[in-house]
């Protein structure tokens, strides 16, 4: 095509036309040239960094100079696995991430159900935007908002007082972290469940009804299994992002609220022990790898 075009009377620059015919003869050349810069970026910056992180986890630092010593050893992992403190922190992080995921699934399901099966087309579009928007409104802003609310003289206690209840002091506790994480990641759960519910064929539900299933039975035995991949897809985000967070524990957590991320952060910033931080960072990566494997078995990737 391009070769023929070059013979037409239309004036063309010779160089451009030669390049074009080259692309025509070698169809893989253009994608290759286009793909090289972005792939190069990812391979030589991002993947190289991740690989270096993995390798660094097996190095150590000189306790006197805090310089990295590049000798292969398992000390960092041994310390993490044998020290109770780290197990407690890993356990806390895991537990709160799991609680947040369950809470979000419970909060999200009815909303997604309403959006997918009851709301009109117009309301659906509005709700979709309304659910997504908070996700884009600054992460720090949303955490900060909860500091203001949970504050001793904040909106929460003011509301409690209004209805004659005693003030609640949940600011700077694990409860506060659970609440704030559930708030921040909720949209991540609503959207995939909504998408999964939209795809449930009406005929299956009618068939269930025709066969005499009551509504709860249909919900439990027909709808829930079909929507499960959506719930799992949402949980990948709620779980993974909670697991790696350290900002929320610093800002709304209390004295005993350290997450894996906090220890990693402290080891990079304060202790300057990057090898140990790298080893500890492998914990959420390992947990997520197992989680993703299970998620894949449950068909969550088709629901993403």
């Amino acid at each position: 095509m391009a070769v023929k075009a070059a013979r037409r009377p239309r004036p063309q620059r010779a160089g451009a036309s030669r390049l074009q015919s080259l692309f025509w003869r070698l169809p893989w050349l253009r994608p290759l040239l286009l793909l090289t810069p972005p792939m190069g970026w990812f391979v030589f910056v991002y993947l190289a960094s991740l690989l270096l992180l993995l390798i660094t986890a097996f190095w150590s630092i000189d306790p006197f100079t805090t310089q990295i010593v590049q000798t292969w050893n398992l000390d960092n992992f041994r310390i993490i696995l044998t020290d109770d403190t780290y197990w407690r922190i890993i356990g806390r992080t895991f537990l709160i991430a799991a609680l947040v995921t369950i809470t979000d699934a419970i909060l999200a399901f009815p909303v997604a159900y309403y959006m997918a099966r009851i709301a009109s087309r117009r309301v659906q579009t509005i709700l979709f935007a309304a659910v997504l928007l908070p996700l884009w409104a600054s992460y720090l802003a949303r955490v900060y908002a909860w500091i203001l609310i949970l504050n001793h003289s904040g909106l929460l206690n003011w509301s409690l007082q209004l209805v004659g209840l005693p003030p609640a002091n949940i600011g700077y506790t694990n409860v506060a972290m659970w609440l704030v994480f559930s708030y921040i990641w909720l949209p991540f759960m609503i959207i995939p469940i909504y998408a999964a519910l939209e795809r449930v064929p009406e005929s299956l539900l009618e068939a269930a009804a025709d066969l005499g299933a009551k509504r709860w039975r249909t919900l439990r035995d027909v709808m829930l299994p079909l929507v499960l991949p959506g719930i799992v897809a949402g949980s990948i985000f709620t779980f993974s992002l909670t697991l790696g967070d350290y900002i929320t524990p610093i800002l709304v957590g209390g004295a005993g609220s350290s997450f894996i991320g906090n220890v990693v952060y402290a080891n990079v910033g304060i202790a300057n022990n990057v090898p140990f931080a790298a080893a500890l960072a492998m914990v959420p990566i390992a947990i997520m790898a197992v989680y993703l494997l299970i998620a894949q078995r449950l068909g969550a990737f088709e629901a993403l």
Partner: protein
Amino acid sequence: MSDGIWTRIVLRVWVVLILLFLFIPIGLIFFYAFNTSNIESWPIPGLTMKWFTATWDDENVRSALALSLQAGLTATALALVLGSCAAFAIHRMTFFGREVVNLLFVLPLALPGIITGIALNAFFSFNGVELSIWTIVVGHTTFCIVVVYNNVLARLRRTQSSLVEAAMDLGANGFQVFRDITLPLISTAVIAGGMLAFALSFDEVIVTTFTAGGQSTLPIWIFGQIRHGILLPEVNVVVSFVILVTVIPVLIAARLTGGGGASRVPAAR
């Protein structure tokens, strides 16, 4: 399955409650930005504009804003080029590596930011690179590429190849086809991708913490102030501003792409 009237009512109430849950905290900050008192308690005693001028006069806020804008715009520009290149290369291709490319690009958003952050930090210090605005840009570009890529790719898939073929049959060369056919068709998707990338960058704190060294972007300044509980009246103003700066581009992007653009990648952190 039809839902009874009571189910509908209960669900409707639930949806309203969740929407209140999602939006009251965000709305609240805007009220606090006008708080006359410098103590953050509810209800606020009165409304004032004084914190806006105080914040604008704060040198630290200004320099943090300047750094955020510079880093954000540079990262967006780089992400636009790299993300668009990748989208052009990948669309119409069904080679086996395609899924790998998709996964690779979304990884910086799906993995917790702290992993990307300390990986880049280790990478820079290993290679003896001093932390500067450029290291921030490298970090931001890495997680911004995917939003541009997704938006442009989605648009390219929806464009009919017959238009390009028709132009070529009529004698247009590759450059003319790109300028007169392809570019107008994908321009709004590129703009939308750029806006989302900027919104993502402007608000990012975790990766930035590990790539900024001693410098402060706006989110790092906010984090520091909240953490130590100082200058909170100014924080209220800055945070309100950041919400607007991140939400407005997203709304425009959603408009440009018919609503789908903003949802393609769940924005993280």
